[in-house]
């Protein structure tokens, strides 16, 4: 619009800045979780994720090696090594040997411990402990350091969540279970709805308008109403809780939107093509398969994405129709809620599990955004 007026005002800057602010605000929470999933337990619990890119000052409690590693040298018993286990880029500013005064010494100072033992710590974490008599005890001396540690990221969380042999977090199984629920629950309603949408769009029969209205009405019926009646029904006809029930439920709940979207799209297809085909003697079935389906691909794709996202992200249907007391059929959303309850403080596991479940829909989202937007525009009831 500024081009029309012919002036580039300070408003343009305001627009840019506000939009940047908004995008940052919207991205910030997700990025936080993503970054956290690459940090170690210690890092997550000692500093905010926004500090992870700069080197951070951390208060760490470390131990020297245990006394049984001591060696005797020139009449002195010594233990030597690095507090961080291996050479690191850390930079210790102060350190101490008691939890009450963690800043007693600077690097290079010599601290006196009991029994005449002394310990000295260098800035990079190298330490030297020496004593005139053999040191005893099972564990090493605790050293409290305040250190600048460079940013560090790890894939261990993902290894732990996805590749752990004992599958303690249960995410690998849940991932495949989710996939098992999602794919049939996406493919079948598309097919069923496409035929119905064709009938509602291009076939003439009494009651058609009424059916379209009914579909629009069912579009907003909360699925909460369906929980108990359908669970009862499933139990009576012997489906019980399981994949079949979940597939059927997702199919039923997805159909109104599917029919609505596809019908609206098919109504807009050019009448000439269909009438010409009819004149040439094509049956409705042939018209549908050979003409309508290929032409409706964008609408089919839009709905398929919707249904995929919805079934992948669903918790309620899975809780009610799928997951039985054995927990064998648990899905990722349920697994994450479980982790929230039992491992509420273990952010490295939570963040990683959540990201494993978010990654797939995000991938689909960025790959197929065009169809999603088109579907949204067609699907919101005007």
């Amino acid at each position, binding site marked *: 619009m500024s081009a029309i007026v012919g002036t580039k005002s300070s408003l343009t800057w305001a627009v840019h800045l506000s939009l940047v602010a908004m995008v940052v605000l919207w991205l910030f929470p997700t990025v936080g979780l993503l970054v956290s999933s690459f940090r170690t337990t210690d890092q997550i619990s000692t500093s905010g994720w926004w500090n992870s890119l700069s080197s951070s000052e951390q208060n760490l409690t470390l131990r020297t090696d245990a006394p049984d590693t001591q060696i005797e040298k020139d009449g002195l018993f010594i233990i030597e090594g690095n507090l961080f286990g291996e050479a690191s880029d850390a930079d210790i500013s102060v350190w101490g040997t008691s939890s009450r005064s963690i800043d007693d010494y600077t690097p290079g100072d010599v601290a006196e411990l009991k029994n005449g033992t002394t310990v000295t710590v260098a800035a990079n974490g190298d330490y030297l402990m020496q004593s005139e008599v053999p040191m005893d005890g099972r564990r090493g001396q605790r050293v409290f350091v305040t250190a600048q540690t460079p940013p560090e990221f790890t894939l261990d969380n993902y290894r732990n969540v996805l590749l752990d042999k004992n599958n303690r977090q249960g995410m690998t199984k849940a991932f495949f279970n989710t996939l098992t629920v999602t794919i049939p629950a996406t493919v079948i309603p598309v097919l069923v709805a496409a035929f119905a949408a064709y009938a509602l769009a291009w076939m003439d029969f009494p009651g058609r308008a009424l059916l379209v209205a009914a579909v629009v009405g069912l579009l907003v019926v909360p699925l909460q109403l369906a929980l*108990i009646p359908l669970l009862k029904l499933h139990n009576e006809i012997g489906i019980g809780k399981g994949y079949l029930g979940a*597939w059927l439920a997702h199919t039923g709940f997805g159909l109104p939107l599917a029919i609505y979207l596809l019908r609206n799209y098919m109504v807009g297809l050019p009448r000439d093509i269909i009438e010409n085909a009819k004149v040439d003697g094509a049956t409705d079935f042939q018209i549908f398969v050979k003409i309508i389906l290929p032409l409706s691909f964008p609408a089919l794709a839009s709905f398929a994405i919707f249904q995929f996202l919805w079934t992948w992200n669903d918790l309620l249907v899975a809780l009610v129709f799928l997951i039985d007391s054995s927990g064998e059929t648990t899905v990722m959303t349920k697994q994450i809620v479980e982790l929230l309850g039992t491992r509420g403080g273990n952010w490295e596991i939570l963040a990683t599990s959540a990201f494993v479940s978010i990654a797939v829909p995000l991938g689909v989202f960025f790959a197929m955004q065009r169809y999603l937007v088109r579907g949204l525009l067609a699907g919101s009831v005007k």
Partner: protein
Amino acid sequence: MHPAFQAILTIIIGVGGCVGYFYFSNQFLDKVVFPSRGPNAGRNITRANMVRPWLFLFPALAALSIYLAYPVVETLRLSLTERLPGNRSQFVGFANYQQMLSEAKFKEALLNNLLWLVVVPAFSTAFGLLAAQLSDRVRWGNIAKSLIFMPMAISFVGAAVIWKLVYDTRPIDQEQIGALNALYLFFGGDAPVTWMTQIPWNSFLLMAVLVWIQTGFAMVILSAALRGIPEETIEAAIVDGANPFQVFFKIKVPQIMSTIVVVWTTITIVVLKVFDIVFAMTNGQWETQVLANYMYDKLFRANDWGVGSASAMVIMLLVSPILIWNVYNARKEMQ
């Protein structure tokens, strides 16, 4: 059987079954029931064409009636009955509704839901409109849109985890890892707050999660509407000396009012069904209960189908004005 194998089998059976059903039922209709040859060929073709729509519609209609229409009726019936031992039930009139209305938790859920109904659609639509207007005016608008739209793809449970980290609290002597507390302390707060227990702020913090998700939806729809506004109306306003704010509020917004209403009602429906966020973040504790979670509690924790169904009917009741309005509009459009 391995579930993955089972899933593949289902796809094959499901898809094959669907295609087979449509193909063979059509063949059956044309070749056996009303063959298009012989003395009655003409009449048979007409008859077959009268039946065919119902062949196409049958699977969808069956699924719709079993999975959506029947439950509405059955829930209504359940809400008026009480379960007796041995799979029997007894008609109790409005006793379930009375019991529900006398419960403090229900009043809390209803009040909270009404608050959600005002706050979430209002903020989502407002932010969506803002984002749409801003991103249409800059060259990198499409990237901005795509990033603001992204939370739409994230599950409510995933969003709950994401925001739980934002709201996290650490003891005062430790560094805060939750962004909200870090900000709060940075701007002069005394001590970190356990946000999820702060009544009434906790409810608003849960609403923020849904606003964050729904803004992208509002933005996409409203952005398309803004682009559909005829350029002349805007040019005329500018020629008449309107400033950008006047153009936006006096020219653009009135012209997309119908779309704003659509966005508003669509988000309203989402809000009425909101369950996962509350379930995962507070489970209705600390006065954050909402209807959908209350209903889940009643149905599956207290095993009280009567009251649970009654609360489901309350959700249905709240949705029905929108339902009627949509049907009314759809019928108008079809004529």
